[in-house]
């Protein structure tokens, strides 16, 4: 312990002047759209030790998901720095990155390769992923034929079985039927017990965060309100939300 897996310093993420424009509009109005600036994450700093499980809570639009995307390397930071110390990272969120016309099996390989695993390694884990996802014969069908529940099950299975060192989980533990929910929660717990794994969970479910997390971070309007013991922070948060 004592070794940091994630170090975030003065992180700022803005959505600014990035509205797309069209040539038609420019011709008609003779000017570009006005620039709009929105600070989604404001000057946030924190460090997560290796093996810790952090819960992130806050009302909608408080910058939680944006921050996870920045940590996963999908968004650029407009200020500050994120240091993952070379750990592999995966983001798990609703509506997953699948190619709709390809089969579930091929999507597993593609997703695995994008997460930085070799094709051979993904193939090795293939049966385990398929079994965990409970998709059965559907795995050979194009992903566009899947229901939303099947989508999320497959996405969860890929990230859970392939096991990156840092897992960022955005709201997905509440998908699927009761049975799958229980199963994924158990899987999460076993993953969490691994001392080398660092996890950040964004969720609105207070009981779940209480059960899983070693620390909770409360965000509001892109800023950190508090980081601390789950019980205390969650208690203050629920009072605040009343």
């Amino acid at each position: 312990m004592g070794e940091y897996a994630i170090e975030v310093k003065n992180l700022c993420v803005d959505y600014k002047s990035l509205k797309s424009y069209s040539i038609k509009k420019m011709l008609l109005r003779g000017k570009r759209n006005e620039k709009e600036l929105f600070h989604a994450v404001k000057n946030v700093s924190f460090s997560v030790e290796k093996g810790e499980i952090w819960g992130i809570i806050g009302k909608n639009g408080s910058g939680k998901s944006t921050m996870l995307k920045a940590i996963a390397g999908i968004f650029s930071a407009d200020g500050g720095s994120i240091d993952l110390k070379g750990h592999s990272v995966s983001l798990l969120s609703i509506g997953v990155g699948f190619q709709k016309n390809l089969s579930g099996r091929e999507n597993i390989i593609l997703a695995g390769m994008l997460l930085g695993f070799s094709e051979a390694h993904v193939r090795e884990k293939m049966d385990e992923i398929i079994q965990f996802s409970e998709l059965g014969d559907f795995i050979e069908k194009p992903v566009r034929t899947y229901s939303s529940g099947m989508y999320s099950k497959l996405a969860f299975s890929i990230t859970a079985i392939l096991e990156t060192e840092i897992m960022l989980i955005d709201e997905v533990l509440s998908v699927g039927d009761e049975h799958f929910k229980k199963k994924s929660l158990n899987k999460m717990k076993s993953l969490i017990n691994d001392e080398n794994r660092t996890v950040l969970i964004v969720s609105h479910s207070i009981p779940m965060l209480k059960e899983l997390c070693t620390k909770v971070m409360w965000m509001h309007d892109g800023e950190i309100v508090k980081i601390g013991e789950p019980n205390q922070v969650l208690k203050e948060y629920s009072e605040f939300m009343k």
Partner: protein
Amino acid sequence: MGSWEIPVNEEEAIGVWVRDELSIWETKMKRIINDLKKYGKYVIYAGRSELKAEVANSYLNWLWWVIEPFCFMLVYAFVFGVIFDSQLQYFPIFIFIGITVWDFFNRMLKASVSSVKNSKAIVSKVYIPKYMLILVKGYVNGFKMLVSFAIVFGMILVWGVPITWKFLFIIPILLTLFVITFGVCTFLLHFGVYVDDLANVLNIFLRMMFYLTGIFYDLHAKVGAHFGTKVADWITELNPVAVMLASLRRVLLYGELPHYKWMIGWFLIGLVISWFGIRLIYKNENSYVKVI
């Protein structure tokens, strides 16, 4: 402020500038090579699965890669060979080569304008250097182009076109075509994210270019007959697709050498465009997700 080193003379200033540029060049080059190593396998696998999916959706789909250009060839051969009475030697093969090359260029450009938007599901979940999306399309359309070239060779055998060692030039010509197309696609990918109706503008531009590339007529001869050889030279040489097309026809059909000067020129230009295109994408790609 005190540590500022002011170059003593001009020579030294240029030396400093060259050194800085070279070090930027080196780090960027390393990044490109690393990314190609890291994502190369993904590109190949993704391209292959896309082709497979196309075939799986309907068993006759791969036949369409052949039937479609073949039917267009028949139409052009009828319209321009019979009605407009074209006297070009091996006219059907002449057209087929044109369609094959044009299809590749056309499909690549159209795909790259919307490639980030179309891959939203992936790019908003995981980091991938965005020009890899172009390479996936390059794999898919490159494969289709090769299938089409197999037909060209079949036709060459049937028509009894003499086969010479000059056929080997097909490799550098297609390589040049690929580099040029990739370079243009990097810029289209970038601006396609920010400009909503770039696709419409591109369509008009491509249609214009289609007629000015000489897919179904001898561009150089026709333009030359109307405006003189000087203009004909310019209009063919300044259009990279026309240069590649004319060169392919020369080596495959008429046993002549390709326009190698312009080929080398366009190859180098293609490399420069790709270089700046990749740098542009690296600089901006992490903001793309915020727009789409």
